[in-house]
């Protein structure tokens, strides 16, 4: 089992969600996050007062998947979240020790 974390542009969320649904992913956790990468921040100007915004809003997806699905999920996210411009985001793949469904107590692949 793996935990896939993807940081994407906020406006891409719906597209990515729909695409993941299509390949049979049944659960995603979504958070609104802020940060910076190569895109850096931007400046805002209010009546001549300039403020640098260092952290830009992004969406973080967390998806737990069985090993054999990892490649497909990564490919789907890559294809749908990509705009080709700087700031498209990143995908991290983390090992996952265990998954438990709270309602039934099922574990492992059954719980995902």
């Amino acid at each position, binding site marked *: 089992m793996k935990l896939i974390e993807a940081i994407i542009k906020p406006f891409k969320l719906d597209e990515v969600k729909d695409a993941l649904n299509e390949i049979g992913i049944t659960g995603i956790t979504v958070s609104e996050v802020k940060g910076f990468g190569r895109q850096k921040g931007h400046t805002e100007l*209010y*009546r001549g007062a300039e403020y640098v915004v260092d952290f830009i809003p992004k969406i973080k997806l967390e998806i737990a998947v069985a090993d054999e699905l990892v490649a497909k999920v990564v490919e789907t996210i890559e294809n749908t979240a990509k705009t080709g411009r700087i700031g498209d985001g990143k995908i991290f793949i983390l090992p996952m020790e265990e998954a438990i469904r709270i309602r039934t107590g099922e574990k492992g692949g059954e719980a995902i």
Partner: protein
Amino acid sequence: MKCKLSIIKLLLVALTVLAPLAVLAEEAKSPDAPATAPAAVAPAAVPAAAPVAAAPAAAPAAAPKTVDPVLNTGDTAWMLVAAALVLLMTPGLGFFYGGMVRSKNMLSTLMHSYVAMGIVVVQWAVIGYSLAFGPDAFMGLLGDTSKAMMHGLITFKDGAPVFALFQNVTTEPGAIPEYVFSLYQCMFAVITVALISGAIAERIKFSAWCLFVLLWTTIVYDPLAHWVWMVDGWLFKKGALDFAGGTVVHLSSGISALAAIMFLGKRHGFPTERMAPHNLPFTLLGVGLLWFGWFGFNAGSAIVGVNCSDAAGGLAGLAFTTTTIAPAAAGLSWMIAEWIHSGKPSALGFGSGVVAGLVVITPAAGFVEPGAALIMGIIAGVVCYMGVLMKAKFKYDDSLDVFGVHGIGGTTGALLTGVFATVGATGLLSGNVQQFITQLVAIAAAGGYAFIMTLVIAFVLEKTIGLRVEKEDEIIGLDQTQHSESAYN
């Protein structure tokens, strides 16, 4: 440098296009002007304010024939609405300012405006109206106390109420109840002091602000209103033009804002920390409310218009027109100036431009024609945009640009009124140099008086109860530390 040049170029282009238009309009108008003037020709080229029942002696000496006032219900209906419109400007101002502060100071900033509605209205009823519009007590500087508690506005004859009437022009009968006039003027007093709150936002102690409101209205506003709008006020007698309060309201509050922050100092963290507006939608909503209320402010001011006994007539229509055109042009000119200068047309910029246009047209609203209003609007947006940029340059902390918009806008408006006036008065463009000089005198006198007295008030408050909150309280935010509330939960 290049950007500055482009702004100047833009301004020049606009001027060269529009100036001939205005001149044309002026030429077309001038032949009719004598014909439209009343045959009786009251000499004053200024608003006449003569509360008849209480102060018949106040009538201009040269008026040929005085007629008894007759209640005009149409005028009264409009003035009741106009007064309510002007009251609405103060909550509008609260939201205009509130949107521009950080979220931890939202309620505090709203309260600066709202509490003025409480304090100033009470002060007005008790003594303010009398000080401003009572019979002259001393050399045209201040009214006496004979109308304290609004005394004399109602009397009883055989048990039936008799309402005192306010007659604008003594040669014509049109009049409204003095209660309506008094309350209309009351709303002006409320918003004027509230305007100052933008400069001292995010760091003033609430108790100090409450006292400031009371003292400033009594010591600065009431005398100024007497000088400029009362028939025996000294600037009124000099012939200074101020249709709806460019000098009394905007210039005075803008200059006073500057004086107040000299004692108050900068906000903690200014200018390095991020102090971006927390809710610009509120600010733009405030702009809308202000513009809407301003129709009462300017078009209602026909009640003290030149040789005009109609509060709801042609002069009100003219003021309504200029109050629509100037802010529209100013919103655009600020937006375009910002677009050229810093690359993007901002929403805050457009909104600020609208307010700048309203400020600049206020003293001129019923004295100029639409062509001049258009030019004044364009100038307003560009001049006030530069006024606001000054803050970044000189590093003084006028939190929400009261001086940049109202101080500079009010001064510009008062000057330009002396340039463009064609209706019921003449300005520089019509060859009246004296009028322009009178405007300068009025600006210097009102501005100087407001500045010095505000320094005194701020000094006294600073030495007694202290103007500013503790540094820690300021960082936590005034909502929590001054009011034990938070705006958003």
